[in-house]
């Protein structure tokens, strides 16, 4: 499985951080997510995936992303 992110689509809702933390820990805590939204000074956003990402088979981060900025695939 793979996770592909497109920061240009991101709107900064951080639903992915919440969803990932729920999948990983069973509770909500963005600091325990393996995905992080970085708010840049120029107003843009960066989606950063950490090495803790397991590229889940049915990733909740992608399921909750409202803009298709996170896409899961076979590879």
């Amino acid at each position: 499985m793979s996770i592909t992110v497109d920061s240009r689509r991101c709107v900064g809702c951080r639903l992915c951080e919440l969803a990932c933390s729920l999948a990983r820990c069973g509770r909500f805590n963005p600091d325990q997510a393996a995905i992080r939204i970085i708010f840049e000074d120029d107003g843009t956003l960066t989606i950063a995936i950490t090495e803790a990402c397991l590229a889940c088979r049915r990733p909740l981060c992608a399921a909750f992303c409202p803009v298709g900025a996170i896409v899961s695939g076979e590879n």
Partner: protein
Amino acid sequence: MPHGRTGKMLWVDLTAGICRIQAHDGSPAFIGGRGINQRLLFDLQPEGRDGLHPDSPVLLSAGPLVGTLVPGACRLAVDFRNIVTGGVGSANLGGHFAAEMKFAGFDQIVIRGRSPRPVYLLVSPETVALRDATTIWGLDTWETENRIKRLENEPRLKTVSIGPAGENGVRFACLIGDRGRAAGYGGSGAIFGAKRLKAIAVRGGLPVTVARPEALLDELMRFNRETIETSDFVRIHRQGGTLAAYLRPGENRPHAVCNMSGAFWDNASIAAVDRAVFDQRSLVRRHACFACPVYCSAVYRTGDRVCEGLQANSWRAFASNLRITDPEMVMRLHALANRYGLDGDHTSAVLAWAVECFQEGIIGRNDTGGMELNWGDGDPLIRLMGQIVEGTGLGAVLAKGLDAAAGEIGRDSRRLAITAHGNALMEAAMRSHKAWALGIVTSTKGGGHLRGAPAVEARRIPPEVSRACFGIGDIQDPTAYENKGQLVTWYENYKGVVDMTGLCYLPSMWMELGLFTPEQIARFHSLVTGGEQTAADLMQAGARLQTLEHLFNILHAGFGRKDVRVPEKLARIPVDRGPFAGQRLEPQGWERMLDDYYLAHGYDAASGWPTVERLEALGLTEAGRRLAAAGIDLPSAGGPAMM
């Protein structure tokens, strides 16, 4: 650890420089957010002390759904004694602060006292501390956030802060978060300023747990699939927020034009400052508050900075109400209000009133320091905003708020000032949409459309739907007075539920009947907290909150039916053209709506006060005793409540 809550509150005594962490058990009767804030404010606020007094508290709270995946659960409730009206002060801000505050470990922060020197409050899992803010005092809200992040070496901090407006005691100064999210009405910024509290900075790291995570996940997936992704409201707001929904070309929608003198703006003017113009000139990206899949906001470039906004409200404030058609000027005014920490509605109201006074010859160059004030000319208004913040020239008068400024200027200027309970109004559609107008004026925080004013009134809801949704009759005609008092009552109670749980009012039944029904909120609330409160329980809690706020207004400001008046200008000048031509607020229709409104709440219609029986039914008898102790006798034997 309780579910949906951190179980902790933070007490801050700025006079003594002490922070105290206290465990709390939650409050089924008041849920959270605005509910627990107002409950505590009612107890803590001393009589005879205005909101700026060190003994007067300011409370911040994030409801039980905040910090979870429930869509749009991101709101921060800020409650205090209103320094504009003297009654309830209650503001609400979106963005990312509220969730971060919960992840930092607190459901609620209570602030009292006055610091001997400027400070900011830092709250994180490792640190709760008052930090010296001497070096950042005087900075605008954007620079304040930047500086605190650098001082703490933590770019992920979220802040609410005041700018120079709050520091200098402008009565309508507010708190700003996320460079464009305002806790607007009532002067919370001036209260922070009086307390020498420059900002609160929060950083998370702790978890929020929920009672039934798997069931919540299933319900969220279903809700998103069946409701969010099929909603017309969501589809339109994703295209460009409230501006996209508000500015439909050729729709002849009512606006606030030239100090609310007119209700319609020509299409050419609207087209000059349409959402597409701003998007083309300066859009960086669409933007969401925390946990919101609607992403109705946007980030725009302004000069060499970026700013959140512009939404319909700020557009109305700085475009139509001042008749400004230069998009650059509209954005400058919007950004400046946010940087100074000024409430946009009240700022627009005093600026537009000043322009109209100048145009009518009530004030002249002697009053303005030589400036000419004309509709559509933004440069003098930029200077006037600077004077408001600095307390100089005409700005020193305007900084006292619209009602006080009209009193000070005199010369028949009050007939141009549109206020409710002494609070400035800057609203569209009040002449034509009768429930909308009633809800704006009955708002317990003095005025404004974010309480009982139902946005759905414009949707011409069929009678069978209104009966099913609200249990009331025909509300199809926006210009009719019938059944509107009941409708406003329903929405006041419903808004309480939204505010207590931490949801956003925009993607809710306020705008579209299928979004966040009380039953849906109860499902989410139960799955998150493990509580068993039904939709009816939550609506009853909403009525309880609404009634408690009325008691606060009676106790501290003496408000009642006598104060819920039709703004004179809206009765005198009818809508001049368009589909609602000739509409105005007629006193007889207004009084009929008020009769219905008080009856629906179970209050005494003559005084507009809750009855002792109603207090008992809502579990507020003890609160009523405080009024009795103050020599205030509440009426008895009111009509049946609608709930």
